[in-house]
């Protein structure tokens, strides 16, 4: 495979943890699992990352991203967005996904991405819209990504978000973070090598993560939105 420097640099830009879309506000269940005594070390973190990637991201978020990336127009993208809303029974997960997606979209509106600008108009008019996988597809199209590249950024930013949250919560140190990222990189590569069918329906099985996030409002003190 030829090395596309331009695309690689764009991937580094959008996959950078310094990308100003508020990713630091989301732990995607890491904080809740730790608070509930289900996550205390690197091995358990790696298991949670594998759960997120294998049984949620690859089977749900990725499917939705692909549909939105291939959608003909903003109306069709919005249909996928509403499907994402319906497919997320937890209010806390829906809220988190929309907040993260809208923040990402907002940055690209400021960067004058044409599809981002057009789609943000729809998002502004419908409280159900703006979910993260959909915004990742829209931004990926504005960035000139291939579908493969958009998927890669989506999966990788999930990994870095989970690991970053674990570091900030004091569950692991910086070296362990790199070890976790290396393990997750291998798993993500395997998942990306397998292309979902065009008729794949979004599905997931992450009950512990779902519950940990949904219990967020019950906690007196928390750092993260999810």
């Amino acid at each position, binding site marked *: 495979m030829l090395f596309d420097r331009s695309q690689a640099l764009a991937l580094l830009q959008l996959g950078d943890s310094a990308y100003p879309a508020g990713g630091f506000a989301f732990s995607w269940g890491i904080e809740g699992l730790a608070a509930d005594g289900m996550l205390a070390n690197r091995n358990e973190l790696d*298991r949670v990352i594998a759960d997120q990637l294998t049984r949620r991201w690859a089977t749900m978020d990725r499917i939705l991203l692909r549909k939105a990336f291939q959608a003909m127009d903003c109306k069709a993208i919005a249909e996928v967005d509403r499907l994402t*809303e319906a*497919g997320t*029974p*937890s*209010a806390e997960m829906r809220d988190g996904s929309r907040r993260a997606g809208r923040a990402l979209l907002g940055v690209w509106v400021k960067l004058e991405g044409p599809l981002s600008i057009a789609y943000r108009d729809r998002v502004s008019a419908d409280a159900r819209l703006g979910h993260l996988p959909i915004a990742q597809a829209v931004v990926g199209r504005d960035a000139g990504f291939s579908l493969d590249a958009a998927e890669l950024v989506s999966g990788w930013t999930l990994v870095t978000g989970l690991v970053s949250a674990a570091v900030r919560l004091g569950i692991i140190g910086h070296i362990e973070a790199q070890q976790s990222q290396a393990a997750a990189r291998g798993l993500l590569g395997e998942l990306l090598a397998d292309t979902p069918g065009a008729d794949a*329906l*979004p*599905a997931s099985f992450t009950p512990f993560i779902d519950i940990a996030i*949904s219990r967020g409002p019950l906690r007196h003190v928390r750092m993260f939105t999810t």
Partner: protein
Amino acid sequence: MRSAATKHDALLDLSFIRRANRTVIDRRLFAWPFVVTRSFYLDPERPGCLSVIVQTGSGAVHGEDRLVQRLVLNPGTAVSLTNQGATSVHRAAPAAGATETISLHVAGGASLEYLLEPRILFPDAALCQSVDLDCAKDGSALVVDAFTMHDPRGEARGFRDLESTFCLRRSGSEPLVIDRTRLHRPTADIFRGYLAFGSAFLVLTPSHDLADMQASLTNALGGSRGLYTAVSVLPDSTGLGVRLAAQDLAGIRTAFAHISAVYRQALLSVLSPPMGYSHGLPDRLSERKENRD
């Protein structure tokens, strides 16, 4: 006879109407493996609510079963439906699998409790089930779904495939909730030592106070040992969803009992007096209906 019971290809096809402040069956069609015998009025607080126990002659789901159910609740009816016990899902041949398709229609002012007992997935079992609920905006429903795993040899061999989908529409709208679980040859470690998993969906009317019910459910489930659970508001504020992981099947059953109690209490708080509080004789009409399988 294995042929479909009705023109809708349903092996179980029940319809309910309200008559003299009570719910009665006006269509009762079933074919193997389903059996429906007498129905009852068991809830003293809702004397018009009909309790139906669906039995399966086979006692289990087998490898290539194609099971179809349809329930229609007409306006103002109240039904609580369950089955005789947890259902074993036995192994399926490679590339084969059992399917169960359940279609539930709840009209305005009607209330359904669809309380199927959990599935017990045996080694190499493969099951694809879907529950499609179309509930009017002023109707309500409680739908529960759960599974556990069992290896008769005690070798921790796992099931092969499970896909379970719950889809909610309100009066034919586009889907408001789609909860789809899919697992393929799961390894034991992903279950973290928990043995039973479930979900409950409480579809409510605008007159219900979701925040109040969420607090009641959270409180009711909070004291259960070995249960990891959360209650959350469903999309479009159409009701509440409960996700459950339990260390055994008893934990799931206890949780479902708590959820049913909160649901019934919520119904009573908004029910009109004739359906909720009148008393009457046991239903005779349903017993006279013939089975046409």
